[in-house]
């Protein structure tokens, strides 16, 4: 009587080879997925001083400050075309920041190229990802505006900064 072990062993090896091939193919497929690219340009550095008092001595500071409407430009590229939908999330990573002060961002143009929706009302930029706007296809020069709120004389003199992260997610 022949022992079944060599045949079972061959089957296992064959299964391993097949599954290994599948893994390689899937891995290559993953590597071959075109990654959507987001590039943003711009920065904003407002300076708040005595000229920002509402009515001179005895009055409060203006609480809200806005950048130019095209302070930030966002370009989405390397999509798979008009059927390739994506969304952009936004969050901030603080350096020195005053908790009384809030940062907001709003989309001020549709850019050029594919479709863009949402983000036309101010979105508060927090330390967690927030959905900012969505779209499809490649779109260039989507302009955005920034806003600071909550500024007051209770904010001590000094320099404050944060890094705003914009992330494109292929949906």
């Amino acid at each position, binding site marked *: 009587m022949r022992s079944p072990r060599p045949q079972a062993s061959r089957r296992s090896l064959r299964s*391993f080879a097949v*599954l290994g091939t599948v893994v390689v193919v899937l891995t290559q497929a993953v590597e071959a997925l075109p990654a959507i690219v987001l590039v943003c340009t711009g920065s904003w550095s407002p300076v708040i*001083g005595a000229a920002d008092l509402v009515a001179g001595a005895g009055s409060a500071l203006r609480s809200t*400050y806005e950048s130019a409407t095209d302070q930030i430009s966002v370009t989405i590229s390397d999509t798979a075309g008009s059927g390739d939908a994506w969304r952009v999330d936004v969050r901030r990573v603080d350096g020195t920041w005053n908790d009384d002060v809030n940062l907001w961002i709003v989309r001020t143009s549709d850019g050029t190229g594919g479709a863009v929706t949402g983000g036309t009302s101010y979105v508060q930029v927090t330390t967690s990802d927030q959905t900012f706007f969505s779209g499809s296809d490649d779109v260039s020069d989507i302009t955005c505006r920034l806003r600071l709120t909550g500024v007051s004389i209770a904010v*001590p003199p000094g320099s404050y900064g944060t890094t705003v992260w914009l992330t*494109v997610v292929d949906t």
Partner: protein
Amino acid sequence: MTGRRVGIVLLTAALVSLSIGVYGGNSDTITVNYEVQAINEITISAASVTLTVSTATAGSQPDSVTDNSTATYALTTNSTTADSKKITAAIDTAMPSGVTLYLTLAAPTGATSTGETEITNVAASVVTAIEAVAESGLVMTFKLSATVSSGVVASAAKTLTLTLTDVS
């Protein structure tokens, strides 16, 4: 572990990788920096205050005169506890002999008035311990007194300067 199990594990890993590949994002950053400068603003509401000593009770020094309804001051500062401010007051030239000018400032919230303070051409503190505050309509009380030894003093003008400055 059999070859089949190993294969299943690897396949699962590949699917997880695939999932990451689909939902992973590409990011870029911008910086937002803002600067809040030191703000120390103070103004006096009235252009002038006139004080005239003209009466006396027989046997006593002339009556001093007081005005607390003409002038107020306003200030805004974003100073902190570690960098609190004070207000000093000074006039441009010394008062004549025998004539004394006093000033009392109402303190803004959280600060301390030094009370009635003689004002000369050397700065004197009139309010201390001022931290972040924005207030207006704070009363300034002027008092002018004279002694008989000063005689009749011709009308004169003095320029009063209030300065918001560091405590230390």
